């Protein structure tokens, strides 16, 4: 009597279904792309500090560009808009601020620049001027600060 042989001639195969794995990877990709698009990248503006000694700092500044000791940029807040003064000279707009600083930087870029903002000036406008000073390659840009609000 002949009986069927239970000796398997071929090796057993390990079937791996790839479809769910691809679905998982696809969902992960969508998740990370979606969450990354909503995340705003933050950058850093390094700065150094200059503490004001009193209510008004008396800065002796030579108005001639060639003998600059220090550039003091005062930012005031009038009629809900910023007003700029560079070494006690009024400047009309932010682009004029940049042009003036560009002219100074072309002569002497290592002159200290001090930002003296009025208390009511929004920080964004102060950062605008600070950003311009950095873009014009001034190496020493400082904030004038007070102890109390």
């Amino acid at each position, binding site marked *: 009597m002949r009986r*069927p042989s239970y000796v398997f001639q071929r090796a*057993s195969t390990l079937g791996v279904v790839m479809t769910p794995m691809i679905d998982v990877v696809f*969902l992960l990709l969508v998740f990370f792309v979606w969450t990354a698009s909503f995340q705003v990248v933050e*950058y850093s503006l390094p700065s150094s500090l200059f503490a004001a000694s009193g209510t008004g700092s008396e800065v002796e500044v030579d108005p001639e560009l060639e003998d600059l000791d220090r550039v003091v940029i005062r930012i005031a807040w009038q009629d809900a808009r910023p007003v700029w003064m560079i070494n006690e000279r009024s400047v009309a707009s932010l682009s004029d601020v940049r042009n003036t600083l560009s002219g100074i930087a072309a002569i002497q870029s290592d002159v200290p620049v001090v930002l003296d*903002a009025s208390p009511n000036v929004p920080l964004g406008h102060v950062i605008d001027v600070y*950003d311009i000073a950095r873009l014009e390659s001034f190496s020493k840009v400082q904030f004038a600060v007070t102890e109390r609000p």
Partner: protein
Amino acid sequence: MRVPIRSGRAEVGFNMTPMIDVVFLLIIFFLVSSHLARQESRLQLPLPLAQSGVETVYDERPRVTVNVLDDGKILLAGRHVSVDELLQRLNHEVSRMGQELELRIRADRDVPYRFVGPVMFAAARAGVWQVNFAVIRSRDR
């Protein structure tokens, strides 16, 4: 009598589907939990715009992050603090970590400067000279 030989290998079936389901659930769990944890430590603020900002380097340098809201409130580690409390905390951190401590100010772009100035003054009094402003990149100026 002939006896059937059962020396052949039994077929080993390995079902991958439940394992994939478990891995998928674990991944979803960790993604959601990390996303929620990140939101608690990173307050959404309209940061000032700047072009010259440098990429923030998250290295081992000790850093203290302070959030200043549009109404002038100062948040340190998720808690409202006064300028004096901030100074005490900075003194403590400087004594612990030395002069390499860095202060990162995340302030609302519309907050009056009079609320940010004292923060920087406190940093100067505590001996923290590395002060960074958190900004977002503006396209042109």
